[in-house]
């Protein structure tokens, strides 16, 4: 099989799940006739028709509200945010209805809310956000943020089959930049399971999405200097894979968390707390983090470059930690 992009992997997952289960429907802005802003949903309308591939008005609240209602009635909607930044518009629907329905009324909401996220493409402050942590803080949701084509496809399939609402973040910098040969046929990747991308013994670098690649790049650089870093791709942010994180920490005793999301309230803080609670006596150094600073994503390309973590910044922090 030829190598495909992450975008194509996501498209295949949608296609195959809609083939597999007639309850799966897609809705969002311009996802039908136009095929989606990034062409993720191209071809769906022709294959499955307007009843299952629904172009909606420009109202995120309406999209999520409708998807929530559909799921009460037994459908498995996959709703798209044209850019994940606009999930803020439907915050009430997501946090009060989608997340709490099962708890409050015994009405499960087996829907997926997906959309292009993240920076690095000069999208500016309204088209580059990483809003995952608002939702990691919302009980009742699952939050997934893959970094590879295989994971993107496998995790989206798991998300669609999951009986809980799943927020599925797609890093748009990776959409066309990562290519991978993936196995033909049906496969899934379990939600809630991190992946060890590189084994190491000196320290653990935890990351996800585009930064998982950055972490690997830094690890290769560090290897040349004699620092053996283990790199873990979280893949799922909620629920966190506590077991894998602690197992790695018990081995390396040092932890660096890297995320593209801004610093304060980022997942690094949560992981630091989790490690202190679960493995304090295994720590041989401070838990460190490399993140974006606490500002909106700048539009100016040089500023954005400064804003985003990169392999150099990660390697520098790792060196300091290794030496500690």
């Amino acid at each position, binding site marked *: 099989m030829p190598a495909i992009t992450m975008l194509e992997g996501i498209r295949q997952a949608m296609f195959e799940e809609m083939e597999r289960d007639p309850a799966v429907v897609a809705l969002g802005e311009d996802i039908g006739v136009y095929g989606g802003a990034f062409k993720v949903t191209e071809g769906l309308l022709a294959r499955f028709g307007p009843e299952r591939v629904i172009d909606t008005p420009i109202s995120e609240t309406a999209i999520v509200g409708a998807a929530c209602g559909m799921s009460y009635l037994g459908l498995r909607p996959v709703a798209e945010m044209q850019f994940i930044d606009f999930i803020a518009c439907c915050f009430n629907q997501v946090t009060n209805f989608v997340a709490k329905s099962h708890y409050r009324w015994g009405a499960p909401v087996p829907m997926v809310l997906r959309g292009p996220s993240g920076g690095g493409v000069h999208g500016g402050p309204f088209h580059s956000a990483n809003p995952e942590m608002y939702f990691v803080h919302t009980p009742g949701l699952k939050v997934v943020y893959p970094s590879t084509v295989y994971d993107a496809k496998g995790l989206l399939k798991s998300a669609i089959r999951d009986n809980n609402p799943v927020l599925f973040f797609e890093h748009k910098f990776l959409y066309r930049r990562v290519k991978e040969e993936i196995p033909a046929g049906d496969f899934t990747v379990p939600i809630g399971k991190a992946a060890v991308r590189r084994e190491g013994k000196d320290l653990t670098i935890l990351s996800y999405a585009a930064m998982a690649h950055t972490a690997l790049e830094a690890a290769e650089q560090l290897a040349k200097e004699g620092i053996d870093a283990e790199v873990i791709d979280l893949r799922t942010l909620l629920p966190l894979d506590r077991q894998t994180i602690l197992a790695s920490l018990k081995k390396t005793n040092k932890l660096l968390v890297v995320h593209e999301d801004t610093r304060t309230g980022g997942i690094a803080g949560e992981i630091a707390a989790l490690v202190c609670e679960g493995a304090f*006596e295994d720590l*041989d150094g401070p838990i460190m983090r490399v993140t974006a600073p606490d500002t909106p994503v700048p539009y100016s390309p040089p500023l954005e470059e400064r804003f985003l973590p990169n392999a150099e910044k990660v390697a520098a922090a790792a060196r300091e930690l290794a030496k*500690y």
Partner: protein
Amino acid sequence: MEVVMPQMGESIFEGTITKWLKKPGDKIDRDEPLFEISTDKVDAEIPSPAAGVLKEVKVSEGQTVPVQTVVAVIDADGAAAQAAPPAQAPAKPQAAPQAAAPSPQPKHEAPRPAAVPPSPVAAAPRPAPVAASSEKIRSSPLVRRMARENNIDLAQVPGTGTGGRVSKKDILQAIEGGGAAHAPSEAPSAPIPFRSPATPPPPASGGAASVTLETAVPREKLYFGQYEVQPMSVMRQRIAEHMVLSKRTSPHVYSVDEVDVTAIAALRAKTKEKFEQAAGTKLTFMPFFVRAAVEGLRAYPTVNASVDGTNVVLHKECNIGIAVALDWGLIVPVVKNSEEKNFLGIARSINDLAERARAKKLKPEEVAESTFSITNPGVFGGLFGLPVINQPNVAILGVGAIEKRPVVIDDAIAIRSMVYLTLSYDHRIVDGATAHQFMGKVKHTLEHWSEAIL
């Protein structure tokens, strides 16, 4: 027992305490680093002359005192009685302010506390001896757990982590019975923040500066907007003085040469692993340049000289100063008698000196008596640099970054590993002709490298 400011070299008469590594009341072992000093020549860690408890610190950080001045008192027998030191403190209140006494007259013989304190310490079932002595040791949760589980006294484990911290590596070594080297602890002096005061702060005392460092404009004009003022370390002051003096003394002329080091780069790449295995030391580019410089100095002895008034002192030894960048400054240890050393000997000396420079373990004589110096701005990415002569040398070689560049050879363009070498030389005694001949020799030696390196 009194601890005095040691004499760190023949011509050194005073030293500045830059950092106390122990606080009064801390337990200390014999030869454990007690404080750090900075002198005209080197920065060094001073080990404790005895085991015991640090009783008193008489000279605070930043103070400069003559050698043999008492700087601290160690209670050699106090180790056992550590638990209750204040109880036995001298009954007599300290009379006249005894500070600032220039003569190191011992004011009071450390009043030994009775060997056994009255409290029932002996009977108290303390959990483990480890706990008491480990309290002040910098480590980590992991290290403390491992110490507990393996019944190890952390005070006995030398730390090599940041700031002398006992790390996982150190305790693993201790568990396996190995020892670890002492690591340097950095001593950053705290910056003094100022927020736009109306008047400039009082002029810096200058510490032990023997040359007044001038400012180019009236001092008031330096202070505007937001700023902070950081005092220079002793080392920084020495560097500043030395640079000003050198520029004032020697009319500097510069020449630049381009050298093809493709063969050396290939040789190094090919031999690196084997060399490091066989010799047990790193194979860098530096010994190649030192060897080549020695060839040049032997052919053109005027470059290996000093100036004394109207006399030229031609040195028979090639003592090559190697500039080593430190986190806290710069130091130039000297590879003595390089002309007698083979490649491996030079490589070993350079690596050893550089390592000990970073660990503050150089002796003063190891930074003296250079006859020529080499600096390597290339490691920081500099294409080339025009260095200031390291007095009393008359020339310094600058090594730029080694990079692949397109080069014309026999009307064809080839990709070659190239480096810019620069020579800053003292025009009082070295003329352009000599300098370029010297550089020609260096270049030829490097480009036609023939010496076996193992």
